[in-house]
């Protein structure tokens, strides 16, 4: 019994981790390339969740409805990200980082209220797609199929992203832009397009995670703030800008939360911030990051 319980907690932690990884990877990506910490990333996640819910109301919860809604939400947020980047971010590059940060915070305020205005202030709920609604017993512990699905999707997307970044021409340009924007510009590459593309992709990821989380969590005002703090912690632990760092950061964070409630129930809230502080003090660029 004890072993199956530990396994269950471990799997629970892994599920949390994979969700977080999906959303934190977008945050990390944008920071790695654009040196920008995007507070509004959590808001994009929330908008993705709301859009998915909305799409399901329109399409009706048939079998394929959920997947259509998810795609719709992810693309919708990607477009939103693109618009934001073109209209606003472009004029902020080169300005002080403080202004960029404050801009993303302004977005958080605006998008948060926009969501309340459009979808009300209550709690919304989406049912699990029927094909993934069951569960499976592994090592004596019941694992919902949907959670297992997430554990596959998360790393797959990440791996895909890592492939693109490290093995393709486009990826090479992105990494070059990360290292030296002016030089790349001088060499004739359209850095503006690269930034736009990165931002759109990152927003797409945020919207996707928001949509995918709806069957297992409630859609509620304030979910943007809750998730961005967690994404921050994950990215700090793993290292800003490092894809694999974000992956391992999420895994660690997920397990700390999962087992934290057993070992020190009152302190899991405190322990994650303490972990973040310790990493920043001892090794600010995280486990896998590079010094700034």
């Amino acid at each position, binding site marked *: 019994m004890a072993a199956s*319980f530990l396994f269950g907690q471990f799997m629970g932690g892994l599920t949390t981790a994979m969700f977080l990884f999906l959303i934190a990877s977008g945050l990390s990506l944008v920071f790695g390339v654009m040196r920008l910490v995007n507070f509004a990333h959590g808001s994009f996640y929330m908008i993705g969740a709301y859009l998915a819910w909305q799409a399901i109301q329109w399409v009706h919860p048939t079998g394929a409805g959920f997947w259509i809604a998810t795609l719709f939400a992810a693309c919708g947020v990607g477009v939103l990200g693109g618009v934001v980047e073109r209209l606003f971010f472009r004029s902020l590059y080169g300005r002080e980082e403080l202004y960029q940060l404050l801009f993303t915070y302004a977005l958080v305020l605006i998008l948060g209220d926009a969501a309340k205005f459009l979808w009300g*202030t*209550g709690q919304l709920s989406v049912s699990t797609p029927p094909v993934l609604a069951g569960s499976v017993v592994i090592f004596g512990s019941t694992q919902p199929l949907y959670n297992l699905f997430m554990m596959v999707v998360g790393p797959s997307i990440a791996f895909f992203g890592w492939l693109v970044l490290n093995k393709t021409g486009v990826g090479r340009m992105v990494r070059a832009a990360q290292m030296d924007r002016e030089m790349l510009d001088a060499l004739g590459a359209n850095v503006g397009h690269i930034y736009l593309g990165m931002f759109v992709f990152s927003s797409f990821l945020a919207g996707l995670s928001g949509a995918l989380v709806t069957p297992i969590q409630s859609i509620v005002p304030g979910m943007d703030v809750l998730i961005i703090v967690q994404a921050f912690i994950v990215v700090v632990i793993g290292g800003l800008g490092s894809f694999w760092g974000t992956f391992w950061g999420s895994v660690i964070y997920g397990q700390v939360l999962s087992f934290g409630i057993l070992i020190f129930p009152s302190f899991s809230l405190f322990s994650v911030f303490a972990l973040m502080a310790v990493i920043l003090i001892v090794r600010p660029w995280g486990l896998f990051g590079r010094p700034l």
Partner: protein
Amino acid sequence: MRFRHGLAIACAAVALSPQGARAADNIKIGVPIPLSGPTSVYGVPILKGAELAVQQINAAGGVLGRKLEILSRDSKANADEAVRLSRELIIKDNVDFLAGTLTSAEAPAVSTVAKENKIVFLAPSSKSTILTDEKHINPYIFRVASNTDVEGLAGAEEMAKLKDVKTIVTIAPDYAYGRDSIAAFIKALKEKAPNMQVVDSQWPKLGEPDFTAFINAMMSKSPDAVYCSLFAGDFVTFSKQATPLGLFKKIDNRLVDGGEVGTIDEAQALGKDYPYGIIANTYDPVIWTGTEPPEHKKFIEDLKAYTKAQYASGWSIMGYQMIEALAEGIKKANSTKSDAVSKALEGMTFDTPVGKRSFSVKSHETFAPEFWGTMVKDANYPFALLKDPQPMPTDFKAN
């Protein structure tokens, strides 16, 4: 800098600028209550019930010849927000009375504001005994809701009815209400079912988005039953996550919850994902089985007409009661001064659509019973219904 001259004048002018226009000679009631977030599924209907009461009272001529007016604010279930809003309502909007708050974090905090400003404050939903115990009681706080002692006794009575239960685990939100309700349950359980044991307690925070770790921890103890004090949006999230993890199947639906998750509002929020078979409670079953008191029938009809909703809400009755009680108190005192109303409310009996209630002299509470029963599927409705709701507990003695 010379422009600072202008700035100085601007400062003084702004600080001295008059507040908003004063309303007419209405009796103003400030209602800070959660209108957004996970608890709003209870907060919004309470406000609606209060508004219905005000509408009915005003239509009948008001109180002491004056109309009632509600000023509602979104407290977001936050103690400091509720305090801030209450103080603004008192200082800026000059309300005569306060009524509202949902959680037992908000109500005790607002109670201190009420005490300091000498304004009568009625709480429709906060159950924790901390609100009115010896240390915290003051002349101005009155509780329309039930309290955790009453709830714990009823919960224990329900649990005692279940067969083959030896071990129980509990889960409750980690704040005053959760802690008090579990303590009261454990105490009452010793008396009602001494052979049952609580072997573990889980304490997620209020508003927790992910209960998975807690659910796993509960299941690892292989309990026969669960006593749950999660409510509103938290219970919705908890159920949605617990079902695929197999919790309800494992305990054969032997979960008892005292957080009013038997209300229609909650049942609608969960829809077909509701864990049928659990035992829950509500202040108002709305859809009555058995002989329905005519006052209740009329109340539900009025409520449906007011909210233009297809089904009435199980929480509106508490908002309705708090305004009705306040109006009675004002009439009895023949005054809108809180000191006089407070004296009038103490020990006062008032009518509600589900029976008479009265405020105890010592702790200003009604010790209201609630309706408990099993939640079942019903072919006539698209949501779970409370089967055979019975007012419980059957033998509560206030000390």
